[in-house]
């Protein structure tokens, strides 16, 4: 570890903290329907969409209607993407002449993109036409991200409102989120990325003759416009197979730093939106503090592990850390920081191959995802995931002092706790259940890229990442098989909707409740005690659930490495 490495980490955290109230204030105004500086340009488009869709923007929806609207939107998105994948061979914008994607891979990919997972069982430059990349993948990057954000906003409204029957209008929220938040940032961001060296062209792959006379076919495409939303919307599905490690998908150290910031920007800002909407920004800062503690601990541990290298490297006298699977321009700190950020948020873009991380360094991404990606998290998903943990924490705190627990003026009762537990239990069921089944499936095991405990970690990582809707991988596993395509899609589906629907039920239930004034007996939720207790609950729940499986994978691998064993 180096001083300059730590300065980069501290700078990153400081910028996120500084941007949080700015972006949070803007987003709050957008979702309240207030005037913003972009209104003169965007309002005509917004109004036209409502007019064509027959949307009455003043009519709000009950939480069930809101949820059904969201599900219909997903179903439609799924069919568009699946159709594009199957038909791309016959459609335009296909200079590399890609043929139709196989049915099971198309199914997995379509589920993957509507759930904001963006797991890649395909290699982008070898599978997808430009039309699919734009109309299929770029568009789902926008809409699945917007869905996550508006669901978080609906849940916040549940906390913020009193005696209300409705939580907002899904069509209005999704349109405003896309037009006023995601698109404007992406337009500026794309220009920046192209300036840094990212291609943005519809031209065919380039044939070059190298200095030594060899042929090299260089894949290009409309990369920057997709990467902008891929990072901002914490989607993570790469244009290229190597994702953000590919020099065209992350050309410079500066593009790397900005990409890391953009992963966290909107997720962090939503904590501030929460604080503003419930009438006390300190409530938002307390949640961000819980996230920050878990994040910094993860970064420090991962950076330390990667800088230490591996037994194999050290035995050969190779110093400077574990560079296998990493790029020179990012180095150890730029790669370790990225790995923690991308799994803390539900992004899943990678700028280094996670399969080649050290055993302990690779354990941090696993833990981040197993805790439910609540450290900033996916845009929206991170906040509602964290609020589920807050509900549990408040409930436990209430049990300790024997009072009905309350949070931001709302009584937390049996229904909310049951719904929160449903979501928190569905995750480990998918992660651990499918891992156990795959680990004894004779058809699955030959697909592993590494032997020994690392092979087990590859399976665990696959289902953890799928369930958590992350999308990064221990890529040595060949997961483009019928078994993995189908089971992975089930994990992604359950991981998304068994989180969303209970969260919406909580939103509806809370919105109907009366708001009660804080009294001397109210547990304060803006102070250090609350932050510490929440961190404790998250680690205890995660620790009890996942320690055994981590012991079988990364921990035993680390011990084997110390003993000098290779597999």
């Amino acid at each position: 570890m180096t001083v300059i490495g730590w300065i980069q980490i501290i700078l990153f955290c400081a910028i996120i903290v500084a941007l949080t109230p700015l972006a949070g204030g803007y987003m709050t105004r957008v979702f309240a329907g207030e005037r913003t500086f972009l209104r003169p340009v965007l309002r005509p488009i917004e109004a036209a969409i409502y007019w064509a869709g027959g949307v009455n923007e003043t009519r709000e929806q009950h939480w069930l209607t809101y949820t059904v609207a969201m599900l219909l939107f997903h179903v439609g998105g799924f069919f568009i993407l699946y159709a594009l994948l199957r038909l791309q061979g016959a459609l335009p914008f296909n200079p590399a002449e890609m043929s139709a994607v196989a049915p099971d891979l198309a199914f997995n990919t379509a589920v993957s993109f509507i759930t904001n997972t963006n797991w890649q069982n395909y290699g982008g430059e070898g599978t997808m036409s430009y039309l699919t990349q734009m109309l299929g993948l770029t568009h789902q990057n926008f809409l699945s991200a917007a869905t996550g954000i508006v669901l978080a906003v609906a849940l916040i409204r549940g906390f913020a409102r009193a005696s209300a029957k409705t939580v907002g209008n899904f069509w209005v929220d999704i349109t405003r989120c896309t037009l006023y938040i995601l698109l404007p940032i992406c337009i500026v961001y794309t220009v920046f990325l192209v300036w840094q060296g990212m291609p943005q062209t519809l031209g065919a792959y380039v044939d070059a003759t190298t200095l030594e006379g060899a042929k090299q076919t260089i894949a290009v495409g409309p990369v920057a416009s997709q990467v902008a939303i891929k990072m901002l919307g914490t989607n993570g599905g790469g244009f290229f197979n190597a994702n953000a490690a590919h020099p065209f998908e992350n050309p410079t150290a500066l593009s790397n730093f900005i990409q890391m910031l953009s992963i966290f920007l909107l997720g962090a800002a939503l904590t501030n939106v929460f604080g503003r909407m419930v009438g006390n920004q300190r409530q938002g800062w307390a949640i961000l503090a819980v996230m920050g503690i878990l994040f910094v601990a993860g970064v420090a541990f991962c950076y330390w592990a990667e800088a230490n290298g591996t037994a194999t490297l050290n035995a050969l006298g190779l110093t400077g850390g574990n560079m296998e699977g990493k790029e020179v321009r990012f180095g150890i700190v730029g790669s370790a920081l990225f790995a923690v950020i991308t799994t803390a948020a539900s992004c899943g873009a990678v700028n280094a191959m996670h399969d080649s991380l050290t055993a302990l360094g690779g354990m941090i991404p696993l833990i981040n995802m197993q805790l439910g990606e609540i450290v900033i998290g996916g845009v929206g998903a991170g906040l509602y995931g964290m609020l589920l943990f807050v509900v549990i924490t408040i409930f436990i705190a209430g049990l300790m002092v024997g009072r009905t627990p309350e949070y931001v003026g709302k009584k937390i009762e049996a229904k909310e706790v049951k719904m929160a537990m449903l979501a928190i239990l569905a995750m480990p069921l998918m992660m651990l259940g499918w891992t156990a089944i795959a680990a004894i499936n004779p058809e699955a095991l030959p697909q592993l890229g590494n032997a020994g405990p690392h092979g087990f970690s590859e399976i665990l990582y696959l289902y953890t990442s799928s369930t958590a809707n992350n999308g990064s991988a221990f890529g040595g596993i060949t997961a483009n098989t019928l078994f993995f395509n189908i089971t992975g899609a089930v994990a992604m589906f359950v991981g998304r909707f068994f989180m969303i629907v209970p969260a919406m039920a909580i939103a509806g239930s809370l919105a109907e409740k009366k708001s009660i004034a804080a009294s001397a007996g109210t547990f304060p939720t803006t102070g250090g005690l609350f932050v510490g207790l929440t961190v404790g609950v998250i680690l205890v729940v995660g620790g009890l659930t996942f320690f055994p499986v981590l012991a079988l994978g990364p921990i035993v691998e680390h011990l084997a490495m110390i003993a000098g064993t290779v597999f």
Partner: protein
Amino acid sequence: MLKELRPAIVVLVLLTLITGLVYPLGMTGIAGALFPKQAQGSLIEKDGKVIGSALIGQAFESDKYFHGRPSATTGPDPKDATKTVSAPYNASNSMGSNLGPTSKALADRLKEDVDKLKAENPNAAVPVDLVTASGSGLDPDVSPAAALFQVPRVAKARGLPDQNVRALVEAQTEGRTLGLLGEPRVNVLKLNLALDALRS
């Protein structure tokens, strides 16, 4: 619930067209106008022919050129299209080795490469990035140490004094961005182009 069907279809289709066609095509136009070189892939031409991209590494094998990092990319087997074979720096199939920290295959590969490099230059420590495969398999850079390590070989193959080649490496070394971000690096293709220019 049925009344939600119309907005479901219309809003979805309209937002799909805006984000999936208008946005990427519009950005392609803007990018091409503002930064035409980068938008096309930062291609380098020599005598009117494309010889590569400044951002994409190439497989250099001759002693007269500086070498990049090991690349784990593959390509289709010319004998059997259903199989793949090693094809370093295949810029239409980026990938890393995905070998884990306790992989025997990785340990064997590292040992073989380290032995080869030690034989080539016994006077310097082998830089770690020169024997580890990059994440993309297309890393255009090596560390300054990895470039300097190769100076004696390149100088000998070209019949140039060591210090001239060393000075060239130092001139081609890029520092951290803003003195802070990333790591110091040397772009191998640009270094080799400068090397060719030096000779003529």
